[in-house]
């Protein structure tokens, strides 16, 4: 996974982003949801899908082999076998050798303690390497992640850094100069599309929103990673270092996820975002006001069907209805969804795919469990943290005692006790450090759960795209059928008039025009719907595979981590037990 530098605590924005998006969806205000729009898309649209392709895909889903995950080679230490005999406590006692020695030991079976590089390891004779993602850190999240592309030589790495305050230059309606933060976005890549291998741009958060919106439009049906929260906060808070740092981390995660997506990484939008200097040349999301104005102009035409009934260009049909501009369409689709729900007039549309509905249900269940697991993971992390802290405090208290006894010693027994205490204290302090390291690694691994919560939102978005596309199709179908009904009625009436009814005939002609246009629109909509269904299917399949691989890696990483640090901690205490072995009362009763 694309681990970030955030070692303390979890990234909260991943959880918040989906919630905020859902709220926006309900309000239907800003069209900034990834792939979702207005209340219409959330409605349960029923229909049968006779898409055999999807069905067959579903059945193979459970057997899917993830072609993307390379066999992890970094995991096991080169000279060890996971099935090694466990180095038990008694082995240490009997060997009498220093436990946890470096690779120079011949006697010891290689242990996982050696795999895990710890700067506080007393026996590690390498210098302390502070970089988080140093390659020596074999359990860094980088090395455990699947390589996101099919060929492992493809490489793209994005870093977000260097936040800076800048002043708004243009005259804005809001008085007083607006300041905002820009971030430096550095990309290193060997993908040919980009031309260069390393480049940087400066972007502000608004640009990211734009990017997300454009991607949502272009990649309907895809599971697009959700962008970070907009965070409605005061400008004062905006400039606080903590907030800026949180945002920087969130942006980095987001961009890395985008670049990990096999299709989106090649998108024009992302390329432009990452490479083009200066102002971001993507059309911005228009605000509601201007859209309303836009819509107001077009509305009369729509309402009265004037000007060659194609008031709305056909290609626009395939875009989901947004506010303002598409008021009329919005109304129609709302009516349609209502009629679908209440089963009033049953339009001759395909019923929603039962397997799709099952899949949706399953996804929902999965999301619930991921939420639950990630909450418990947080508790676990906290408990580990606390253990480390208290152990450290205990160690310090004993160090003070040791010092005290030594200073005040009158008898030898006191000095002996001081020595014993020191042994305990040193071990406690070491163990405490190990717990804390264990924890920061645990956070990185279990963070995978958090990441996938974000991806569940992406899946929901993809499903919503599909529903809204289906709604469009159904709206058009029902529109078509009512138009045709009108045409038939007119023809019937007109044929009763001898010699033809000039005005009626003219109306029929116009109607036939409209029908033709609507027919075309319907065909486009159906093609779009099929396309989105395909995207859905391949994306969900891809995501399922990725998720499973990522979860497996997470588990492995988590477990190896636990093993390694447990061994280290055990060694530390074994040493004390040995140093105090003269006090072993169990031995003496024999």
């Amino acid at each position, binding site marked *: 996974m694309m681990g970030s530098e955030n070692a303390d605590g979890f990234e909260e924005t991943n959880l918040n982003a989906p919630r905020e998006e859902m709220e926006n969806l309900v309000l239907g205000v800003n069209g900034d949801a990834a792939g979702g729009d207005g209340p219409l898309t959330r409605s349960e649209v029923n229909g049968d899908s006779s898409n055999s392709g999807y069905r067959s895909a579903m059945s193979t889903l459970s057997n899917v082999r993830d072609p993307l995950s390379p066999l992890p080679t970094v995991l096991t230490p080169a000279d060890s076998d996971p099935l090694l005999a466990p180095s038990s406590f008694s082995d240490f006692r009997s060997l009498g050798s220093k436990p946890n020695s470096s690779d120079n030991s011949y006697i010891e079976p290689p242990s996982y303690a050696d795999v895990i590089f710890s700067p506080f390891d007393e026996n590690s004779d390498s210098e302390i390497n502070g970089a988080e993602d140093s390659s020596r850190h074999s359990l860094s999240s980088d090395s455990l992640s699947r390589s996101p592309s099919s060929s492992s030589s493809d490489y793209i790495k994005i870093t977000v850094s260097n936040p800076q305050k800048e002043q708004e230059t243009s005259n804005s309606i809001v008085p007083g100069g607006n300041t905002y933060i820009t971030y430096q976005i550095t990309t290193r890549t060997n993908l040919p599309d980009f031309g260069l291998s390393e480049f940087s741009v400066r972007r502000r958060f608004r640009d990211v929103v734009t990017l997300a919106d454009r991607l949502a439009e272009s990649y309907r049906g895809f599971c697009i990673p959700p962008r970070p929260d907009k965070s409605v906060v005061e400008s004062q808070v905006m400039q606080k270092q903590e907030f800026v740092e949180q945002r920087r981390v969130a942006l980095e995660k987001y961009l890395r996820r985008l670049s990990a997506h096999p299709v989106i990484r090649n998108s024009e939008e992302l390329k432009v975002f990452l490479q083009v200097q200066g102002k971001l040349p993507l059309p911005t999301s228009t605000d509601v006001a201007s859209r309303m104005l836009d819509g107001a102009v077009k509305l009369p035409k729509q309402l009265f069907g004037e000007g060659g009934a194609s008031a709305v260009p056909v290609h626009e049909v395939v875009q989901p209805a947004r506010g303002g501009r598409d008021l009329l369409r919005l109304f129609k689709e709302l009516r349609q969804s209502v009629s679908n729900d209440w089963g009033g007039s049953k339009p001759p549309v395909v019923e929603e795919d039962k397997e799709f509905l099952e899949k949706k249900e399953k996804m929902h269940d999965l999301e619930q469990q991921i939420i639950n*697991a990630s909450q418990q993971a947080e*508790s676990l992390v906290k408990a580990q943290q606390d253990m480390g802290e208290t152990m450290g405090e205990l160690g310090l208290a004993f160090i003070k005692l040791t010092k005290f006894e030594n200073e005040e010693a009158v008898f030898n027994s006191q000095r002996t006790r001081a020595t014993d205490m020191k042994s305990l204290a040193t071990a406690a302090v070491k163990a405490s450090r190990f717990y804390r390291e264990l924890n920061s690694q645990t956070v990185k691994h279990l963070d995978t759960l958090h990441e996938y919560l974000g991806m569940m939102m992406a899946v929901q978005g993809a499903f919503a795209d599909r529903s809204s596309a289906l709604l469009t199709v159904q709206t058009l179908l029902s529109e078509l059928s009512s138009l045709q009904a009108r045409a038939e009625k007119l023809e019937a009436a007109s044929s009763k008039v001898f010699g033809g009814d000039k005005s009626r005939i003219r109306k029929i002609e116009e109607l036939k025009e409209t029908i033709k246009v609507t027919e075309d629109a319907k065909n486009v909509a159906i093609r779009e719907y099929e396309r989105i269904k395909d995207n859905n299917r391949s994306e969900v399949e891809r995501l399922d595979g990725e998720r499973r691989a990522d979860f497996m890696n997470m*588990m492995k990483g988590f477990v190896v981590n636990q093993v390694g640090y447990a061994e280290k901690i*055990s060694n530390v205490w074994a040493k004390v037990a040995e140093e105090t072995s003269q006090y072993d009362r169990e031995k003496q009763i024999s």
Partner: protein
Amino acid sequence: MESTEQPRSISGSMQSPRSPSSQPYLSVSVSDPVKLGNGVQSYISYRVITKTNFPDYQGPEKIVIRRYSDFVWLRDRLFEKYKGIFIPPLPEKSAVEKFRFSAEFIEMRRAALDIFVNRIALHPELKQSEDLRTFLQADEETMERFRFQETGIFTKKPADLMQMFRDVQSKVSDAVLGKEKPVEETTPEYEKLKHYIFELENHLAEAQKHAYRLVKRHRELGQSLLDFGKAVKLLGACEGEPTGKAFSDLGSKSELLSIKLQKEAQQVLMNFEEPLKDYVRYVQSIKATIAERGTAFRQHCELAETTKLKEINLDKLMLTRSDKVGEAEIEYREIKAESEEATERFGRIVKRMEEEIVRFQEQKTEEMGVAFHQFAKGQARLANSIADAWRSLLPKLEASSSV
């Protein structure tokens, strides 16, 4: 139960009572806690078994039933009679009502009482005490009578006792700071000792506090592992294979480790935190002895002064050939005897304390050494089983992911 409770240190060897030419020994055990009585008046009684060949004891074995207040009686009597000796401390009287009868609490108390009695039975002077014999041998009615008859100041509740200690502390530190006139005969060594004892209590209390917290942390970690295991199993149920099985295995291991952690928590509580608490109590008992020494010295001073005054008065009377001389002479002799007694008492306390402090330091080094050793072993064992448990998952995880 009793057979597993070895008294920490046994006087002499573990010789069977049947060998007639064996050295004198006295071995005691406190066991089999039983809840008696109803409702508010319910209490725990313990079986106290004495094995001995002491001449004035009913040997070779005698079993009596005792309750906590009987132990308190014994402690108070010893404190009264053997001034200067660091009387072994008792576990605290009342716990939070809820836990008063919890299995853990009862067991901890039983163990502490066992240690208490054995320390007395091992002490060269204390083991010859009549009160100890009463405690170990008297039948229950007699014991109860003794307990109720106690009227001295030492029937105070521990809360009062604590207040006494605090008073002592302030008095002693006043003396150290020189606020009062120097009533305490001090030597540099004794001053050092007092300072040491008071400081030691602070340090120990802090260590004990963290030890207690550590017990809690073990429990919390255990709980979170349990919850995590459950959640991960549910997650596995949603996922297809092989991830589902992997999650299920992970969850099971997590639940297993949770149990180990709860067990270790209990061990740490009994074998590490409790000895530290005992250490603190011991130091508090020493503080009480320090107070006693102060009191004894004051008495010695006052009586010496009074004797001097009486002597002067007597000489005066003798010079004036008063007929009160006879009376005065008798008074003078009485006071002088008392003063000599007080001086002797004080001297005994000083001597005893000198021996006691050596004993105390050695005993504590031994006891803490044992506690540290057990703690370290426990932690090492725990870490090992954690490592083993997680390690056993790895082959399965490897196999699953290469499918």
